[in-house]
């Protein structure tokens, strides 16, 4: 990015700053979005642990003895993650956990699609009316995973760089 001779220096700096800012804006939007998704996803499951346990059981992945523990713990973990993302707390831990969880969810969905098990997603609601999980559920999860990965990369790579940016400017 060389300075265009036709544009004054301050103008270029302003444009550059704005350009450099979009990852940060995207980061904030994604963080709030994923936070809301996790909080929303946890709500119904916390209210109906019995129904959610059945959804976990139907995935036929966990050993029977671990089904109830998973059904109890997972929604609260989702709620905590959602709150961390919404309020910008503990982001390194929250983004790693959210990415990990989404990978596990996606794996479980795809695994059951491949073996042709007709399961209800149980992603957002424990109600059976949500319909069986299909390719759209997988695509939706892929979308969330992409968002989570962006947040993860931002926290671990970009934020450090942008954190250095003002310092390097003042050094000049």
């Amino acid at each position, binding site marked *: 990015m060389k300075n265009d001779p036709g544009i004054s220096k301050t103008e270029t700096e302003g444009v550059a700053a704005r350009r450099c800012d979009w990852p940060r804006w995207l980061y904030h939007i994604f963080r709030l979005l994923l936070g809301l998704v996790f909080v929303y996803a946890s709500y119904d499951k*916390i209210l109906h*642990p*019995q129904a959610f*346990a059945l959804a976990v*059981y*139907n995935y*036929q992945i966990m050993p*029977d*003895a671990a*089904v*109830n*523990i998973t*059904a*109890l*713990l997972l*929604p*609260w*973990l989702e*709620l*905590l*993650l959602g709150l*961390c993302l919404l309020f910008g707390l*503990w982001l*390194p*831990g*929250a*983004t*790693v*956990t959210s990415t990990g969880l989404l990978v596990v969810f996606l794996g479980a969905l795809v695994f059951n699609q491949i073996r042709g098990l007709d399961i209800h997603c149980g992603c957002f609601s424990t109600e059976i009316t949500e319909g069986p999980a299909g390719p759209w559920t997988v695509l939706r999860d892929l979308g969330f995973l992409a968002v989570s990965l962006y947040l993860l990369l931002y*926290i*671990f790579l970009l*934020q*450090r760089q942008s954190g250095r940016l003002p310092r390097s400017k003042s050094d000049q």
Partner: protein
Amino acid sequence: MKEAKKPIRQALRQIPLLVIMAGTIALSVNYWRETPLPLIGDWSATARLTGQDGESLAIPLNEAKLLFQEKAAIFLDARPQLQYSDGHISGALSLPWQDVTNAFTDIATQLDGNDNIIAYCDGESCELSHDLALFLKDMGFINVRVLINGWTVWQDAGLPTEKAGEANEK
């Protein structure tokens, strides 16, 4: 270099803390709940077929066999039509759960509200017969039971079966 490791170290500390916090809240809330979820659930087929009233939908094989011999029960095959055609319990009617509304109207005339009905499918974890039994109960049938893993246990016991088009072996 020291700075680069910082978020990783934070993450390593925060992840277990998040899990522990979630676990503590989950267990406490569950403990204080009116009907706590047992931490280790009984997910065996029989337990899953037991309603909140403690009454089980499951019927033991020997009971089903007795009703079969006395011709006192109607067997309903909840598996897809194709599997039914490949072989089923002698005299069983096909009522595939996938197409339950159509299939039900087809055979409704052969059923009476007071009949002993035994629904079955195949496999310990098969939910089709369970769903079908609940559906029939909703439709007003009183004596509906489920023979868990029906097709397999029936064959293993050497009880009469038939294929579509074959003469009844009864």
